[in-house]
């Protein structure tokens, strides 16, 4: 099958998913709300292609075409859609409804949501059987494994098309069931929140928290360096999604996280979060 993917949202994940796809020869139509964001994303994709190639993670030559646009109508002939807009449930509902009205029936619609259940989003699309979630890891062009979430209304045909899509992108899917945060974020977001709370209480510095997880437990990256990579704005949004859907106070974003986001310190993407990041890459 000749894939052509529509990617919604050209932020941290949307741009990086575009890199993964075009690097594997799969053309992409990348959509965001303004041209400035799209221009920045084009530049990022170019650099990410280099990084991935440098590390031997993408074929060295021969990328497919990247089209950037603010017009959803340009998605009419894509073979699948990957939604990666901001983690706000009302926004996702609106965007998913819009895109399901543009694409042909049978076009797989994938959400890259961190924490919103597939079955909740299924209420927003015209054909719930065409919807599922793939939780790509950050950065998706370096990490092969992805979490694949089948909702109760996801069709068999959709699941087989997703298998085909992941093969084209050279990713390995781990299929899990539906529910807030799926597997990874049900655990990871709580750990990040708790780690931030420990810093807030003054019990340990971010460096000490991460050094403990890296040195003692062998994690490649500690929870707070991971939070800076994800984007603290996205961490707070994801925690709110989890908190609202589970009622579990462990997910209520702690004051330190909320304060950093209010101050505009989102982590790597703004140059400062729990750490300072020279040259926001």
């Amino acid at each position: 099958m000749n894939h052509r993917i529509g990617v919604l949202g050209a932020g941290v994940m949307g741009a990086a998913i575009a890199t993964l796809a075009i690097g594997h020869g799969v053309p992409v139509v990348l959509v965001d709300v303004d041209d400035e964001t799209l221009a920045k994303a084009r530049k990022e994709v170019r650099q990410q292609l280099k990084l991935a190639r440098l590390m031997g993670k993408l074929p060295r030559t021969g990328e497919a075409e990247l089209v950037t646009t603010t017009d959803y109508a340009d998605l009419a002939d894509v073979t699948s859609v990957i939604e990666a807009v901001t983690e706000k449930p009302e926004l996702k509902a609106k965007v998913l409804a819009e895109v399901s009205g543009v694409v042909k029936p049978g076009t797989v619609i994938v959400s890259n949501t961190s924490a919103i259940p597939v079955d909740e989003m299924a209420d927003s699309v015209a054909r719930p059987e065409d919807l599922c979630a793939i939780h790509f890891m950050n950065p998706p062009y370096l990490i092969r494994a992805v979490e694949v979430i089948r909702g109760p209304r996801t069709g068999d045909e959709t699941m087989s098309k997703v298998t085909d899509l992941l093969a084209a992108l050279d990713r390995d899917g781990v299929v899990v069931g539906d529910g807030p945060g799926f597997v990874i974020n049900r655990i990871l977001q709580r750990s990040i929140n708790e780690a931030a709370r420990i810093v807030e209480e003054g019990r340990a510095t971010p460096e000490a928290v991460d050094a403990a997880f890296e040195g003692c437990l062998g994690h490649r990256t500690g929870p707070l360096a991971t939070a800076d990579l994800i984007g603290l704005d996205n961490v707070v949004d994801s925690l709110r999604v989890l908190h609202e859907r589970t009622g579990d106070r462990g997910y209520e974003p702690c004051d330190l996280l909320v304060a950093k986001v209010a101050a505009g310190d989102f982590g790597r993407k703004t140059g400062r979060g729990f750490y300072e990041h020279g040259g926001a890459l």
Partner: protein
Amino acid sequence: MTTSVNHAAEIERQLLGFVEKHTKKTWTPDDDFFAAGAVSSMFAMQLVVFIESTFDVEVSGDDLVIDNFRTVGAMTSLVSRLRGE
């Protein structure tokens, strides 16, 4: 002394400056900072960005291999070659 040697020396000086600023360590042109575990893979990308913007070259295709960025010496040769010097 030919001009190309002077150019190479200048390229090397700028590269050493960049690497030292980012690793907060001093290096000789032959030290392998990846083998020394002093830097992450993201650093390789910062090197590519720095080289492209500072020396007005494009690193692509078969040149995008980590061996070209392991040492200041290797990067100096790469830049000199891409500039056709």
